[in-house]
């Protein structure tokens, strides 16, 4: 298991080169069926793994989605209690936000992936000589692709990760290209929670996706002081009169067109009048894994279907 992959890869590469060199087979595509196995050791961001990890613990729902999407799922022994996608993840009670290094060590991981370094957990895991990689939430699409490639490299699935990132890139480009041009760019309000009107500006990762769909964020003026998650007032939202309302609180807090339209004064907002209140999947909207394509699809679909106000 340890030595063969390198040999195998070398042989495959040699064979492919030989075939291509002959030039006698024009149909020979450079990618063989089934990507070549990765060779270890690999080094990513200062962390070197001498062997392919087979007991991975993931403590972040976004990272879990990516790990499974690059086909490293069978190597995962435990994920945190918030990871719920795909449905067959080995869910445990491990905590994302109040982690205990000893409890993580109990799973005897040979790689721990996490997004938040709370209570010095990274330093403690390294004390126990457990290879640990901190992959915080990404702020741009390029960072998201980079993170997917890093995860692919660490788990021994470089080719699958590259393919995934490429597929996402082309899907996203296609979605953006399909957004219809309008005389006036539509405005939107993005709602994070039910009662206090916290929103996001275009500076955030999710906000940047809306910008790509040619939508204008009504929260941007409120973020002038550098606050990317401003708290708006109901008055301001009603006055801004957005064409679209996106709810990132449909699952958590049961919000929908129904509840939004019943808020005092909200019935006059264009988005409510025209029923352009879109309930997003809370989970997808708050993560930065491969499903950002689904999120962008929901956004561009709404942008395309909205009636010209």
């Amino acid at each position, binding site marked *: 298991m340890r030595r063969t992959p390198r040999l195998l890869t070398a042989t495959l590469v040699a064979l492919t080169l030989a075939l291509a060199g002959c030039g006698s087979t024009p149909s020979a595509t450079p990618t063989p069926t089934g990507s070549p196995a990765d060779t270890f050791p690999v080094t990513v961001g200062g962390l070197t793994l001498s062997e392919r990890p087979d007991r991975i613990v993931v403590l972040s729902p976004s990272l879990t989605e990516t790990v499974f999407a690059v086909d490293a799922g069978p190597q995962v022994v435990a994920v945190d*209690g918030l990871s719920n996608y795909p449905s067959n993840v080995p869910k*445990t*009670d*491990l*905590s994302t*936000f*109040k*982690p*205990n*290094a*000893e*409890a*993580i*060590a*109990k799973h*005897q991981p040979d790689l721990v992936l996490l997004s*938040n*370094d*709370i*209570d*010095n*957990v990274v*330093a*403690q895991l390294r*004390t*126990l*000589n457990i290879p640990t990689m*901190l992959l*915080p*939430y990404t702020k741009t699409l390029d960072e998201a692709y980079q993170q997917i490639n890093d995860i692919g490299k660490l788990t021994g699935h470089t080719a699958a990760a590259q393919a995934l990132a490429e597929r996402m890139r082309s899907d996203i480009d296609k979605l953006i290209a399909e957004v219809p041009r309008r005389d006036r760019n539509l405005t939107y309000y993005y709602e994070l929670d039910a009662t206090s009107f*916290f929103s996001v500006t275009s500076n955030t990762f999710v906000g940047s996706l809306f910008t790509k769909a040619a939508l204008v964020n009504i929260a941007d003026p409120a973020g002038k*002081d*550098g*606050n990317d*998650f401003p*708290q708006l007032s109901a008055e301001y939202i009603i006055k801004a009169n957005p064409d679209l309302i996106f709810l990132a609180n449909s699952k958590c807090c049961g919000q929908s067109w129904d509840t939004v339209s019943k808020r005092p004064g909200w019935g006059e907002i264009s988005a409510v009048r025209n029923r352009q209140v879109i309930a997003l999947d809370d989970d997808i909207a708050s993560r930065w894994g491969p499903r950002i394509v689904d999120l962008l699809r929901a956004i561009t679909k709404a942008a395309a279907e909205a009636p010209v106000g």
Partner: protein
Amino acid sequence: MSLTTEGVAAPSGHRPARLTARWLVAGVVTAVVAALAGLAIGPVPINPLGGAAELLNLIPGVDIHSGLTPQETAIVTRLRLPRVALGLLVGAMLALAGGCYQGVFRNPLADPYLLGVAAGAGLGATVAVTADAVFSPTVLPLFAFLGALLAVALTYALGAAGGGRVRTPTTLILAGVAVAAFLTAIQTYLQQRDVDAIREVYSWLLGRLAPSGWHEAQLLLPYAIVAGGVMLAHRRQLDVLSLGDDEAASLGVQPRRVRYLVVVAASLGTAAAVAVSGLIGFVGIIVPHTVRLLAGTTYRVILPLSALFGGAFLTLADLAARTVLSPSEIPLGVVTAFLGAPFFILVLRTATRVGL
């Protein structure tokens, strides 16, 4: 036990004014037992005998076969041991500082956070976390420490300016209230602006012993020695001070000087403890009062015993924090209040009078 409190609890009554050997031994034994429990128990079950062998192996020249895997050894010696040591130090510091504040201000409600230490440290920690996109464990203690000292200095300056001529304990306390409210407002504003940082700040605000190796204990130790030394050295003067300023002056004690020195030492010790552990409430109040109710009402008794029982209490509370809801942890401040409050009520009802 020596829980004989009928009626009035005069300092010279049934409970001795001086620290008895019996109570001193009880304090040391409790601290040692708490430390051993903290080392033996955790989310991962480890043979305590093997753990003990590995601890002895840390002494140069000792080499016992423990039968533990390298990972189990690392859990005992590099995760639990620094954590227990930090618990003993932080608990001792907070309880000692609480006892001193109560003595200096002659106020049973005084706690180590009275003069704005908590608010200042909280603001410092918030700034450290929000300014740094990636949370840096080394910057936070420094910022929290500076914030705490800044807050106390501000309280002192305002307390003096507000009083005009005399800085009475009451003006100081009120200045502390104002400073704390002001700094907490800034802290809350910064947190609201930065939802990414809020979890990290929140975890810190609720208190936790999560050292990265020996780093935190090393940071705290020099302050603990100096501040703890100054506080303990003034235990007699605090007793004299409890007779009133005039009486104390006639006995050759300078009330203002003693007060100043003790408050500075207590604030410094608290600031250092808070910097490495976050805001752990309740220890500074219940431990000194429990000692007062059980062992004796003089500061010669209260201060040394508060340090010992404070360390023991926090170590046990942390043991509960990391095991009860394993594999996740409970904020330490939640545990100290949850365990401490009922226990304190029990002591209050058993012993009849509180004498300050």
